[in-house]
């Protein structure tokens, strides 16, 4: 254990409902405020107790949130610009802030109307949505027809399949596990909609090797957590969930998949050893993992790069159902981005906290004490948190 290990704790979690179809009926701001208020309340705090804010990566700025929540004396603010890796990555500055006494309670919200305002469908029909892309992608990927994330990551997946014999059945195992877990989560968009391997294989091809069911959902919703110093978490009525290790990492170059010396070295490859060292824990200590699942292959790749198996071994790791509840490493126990909802990575953090509190209901991982959560940002930025529950110590 080093430095900031166990110095910060997640003491509050909050989520909105997750929706598609007619949409949330709320603005992005309203969604974020709802999730934030629930997280603050869950922590046993009042909004005025919040003096730190990590603003969400998209949709709404920190000032807007602070003004609405009445955060009258913010003394620490930040914003991680790592896309889907930002939610987990934001835990690092949050811990730094509370461990140093810079702030006492840091709110970390994420989410937006991804379905009704920012859907892939919308991106496919509106060119002005391209603007947030890095210049390398805008100037050298888009003109080539590589316009969307499934294509960028398919280029990695295809290479992995050729080098290591990873198969479509391995990709399917990830999608099927997520869908099975979603059947135990009433909040999940795919609750009540089970999926078979035949369903998976019959889904339309989007971009090889990704079929429709290899791709995450676009949903409306938001989630939030509150981080305090570990020894300031008395107000929370829940068992503490300690942030034992947390780190972010960036592939080089971060803005160009093709230009990397090693195709499979991503941000997580660099971040995971740092987080484990900080925690004094390793992948073998994890009772479950919530892995950012924008596409199925990215889960396989992150399993390898986070050290749950060796490079090229992820297919065998998932093929026998070992990532399902009851298996050796239950994965994305809420259904993940694939079958629960896309909340920019924050729903993975919330689910991990729930598991470590022992309040995950039918999908509870028995005796869960250590969970690993990852985030994935565009073109392979990575973040990882090793969370440790104190449930058994207190109950």
């Amino acid at each position, binding site marked *: 254990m080093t430095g900031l290990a166990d110095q910060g704790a997640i003491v509050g979690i909050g989520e909105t409902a997750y929706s598609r179809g007619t949409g949330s009926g709320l603005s992005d701001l309203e969604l974020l405020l709802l999730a934030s208020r629930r997280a603050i309340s869950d922590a046993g705090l009042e909004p005025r107790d919040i003096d730190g804010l990590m603003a969400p990566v998209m949709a709404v700025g920190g000032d807007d949130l602070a003004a609405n929540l009445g955060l009258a004396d913010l003394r620490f603010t930040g914003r991680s610009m790592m896309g889907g890796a930002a939610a987990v990555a934001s835990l690092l500055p949050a811990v730094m802030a509370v461990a140093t006494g810079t702030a006492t309670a840091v709110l970390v919200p994420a989410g937006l109307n991804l379905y009704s305002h920012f859907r892939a469908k919308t991106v496919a029909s509106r060119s002005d949505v391209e603007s947030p892309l890095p210049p390398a992608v805008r100037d050298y990927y888009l003109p080539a*027809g590589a316009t969307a994330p499934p294509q960028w990551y398919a280029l990695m997946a*295809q290479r992995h399949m050729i080098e290591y014999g990873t198969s479509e059945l391995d990709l399917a195992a990830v999608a099927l596990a997520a869908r099975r877990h979603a059947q135990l989560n009433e909040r999940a968009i795919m609750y009540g909609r089970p999926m078979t391997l035949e369903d998976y294989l019959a889904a339309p091809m989007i971009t090889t090797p990704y079929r429709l069911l290899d791709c995450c959902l676009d949903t409306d919703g938001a989630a939030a957590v509150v981080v305090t110093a570990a020894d300031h978490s008395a107000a929370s009525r829940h068992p503490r969930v300690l942030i034992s290790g947390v780190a972010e990492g960036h592939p080089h170059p971060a803005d160009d998949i093709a230009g990397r010396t090693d195709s499979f070295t991503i941000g997580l490859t660099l971040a995971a050893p740092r987080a484990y060292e900080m925690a004094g824990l390793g992948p073998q200590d994890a009772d479950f993992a919530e892995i950012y699942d924008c596409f199925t292959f990215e889960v396989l790749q992150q399993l390898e790069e986070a050290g749950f198996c060796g490079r090229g071994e992820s297919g065998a790791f998932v093929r026998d159902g070992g990532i399902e509840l009851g298996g050796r490493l239950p994965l994305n126990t809420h259904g993940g981005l694939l079958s629960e909802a896309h909340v920019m990575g924050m729903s993975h953090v919330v689910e991990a906290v729930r598991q470590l509190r022992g309040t995950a209901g039918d999908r509870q991982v028995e005796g869960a004490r250590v969970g690993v959560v990852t985030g994935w940002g565009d073109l392979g930025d990575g973040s990882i948190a090793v969370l440790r529950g104190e449930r058994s110590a207190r109950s």
Partner: protein
Amino acid sequence: MNDSPAVGPTPSLEGFTADFYRWLHDGELRVQECDACHFRRHIPRVLCPRCAGDAWHWHRCTGDGRLYSWTTTHRPLHPSFTATPFTVAIVELDEGPRIVAPLLDCDEGDLRVGLPVRLCPHSGGGPVIPAFTARGEAMTTPGHTPRPDRKVRINERP
């Protein structure tokens, strides 16, 4: 497989990027080469990512390379690319750097890592972009010669 991607989103035609596409307009693929350590790079950068040197020149590539990876897109994901299926590849140039580019006129079943490919600058009406096709077999068709589009103003070379 569709061999004619539509006009893509237009790259920023400023600075290095303007130079890069200007060379393509003339049928050449060029990458930056560091004057100090001779590292060749694509995407263009101000500094050498290997030695931080700021002196460099454009190195003219042969246009030959090998297929590194690919994806064949079956569902339109962008309004400029609705004629599916089409294939986007990572090509490893003989000169070293890898580049993302469309792969034209190839059967998906024939694709393999290491497949020799050759530059065939392409324009569907927008700026000329780097594209590749299989080399070795008789793959040349007139449609794959550079077709600079006169309607798109590409800056004159200084």
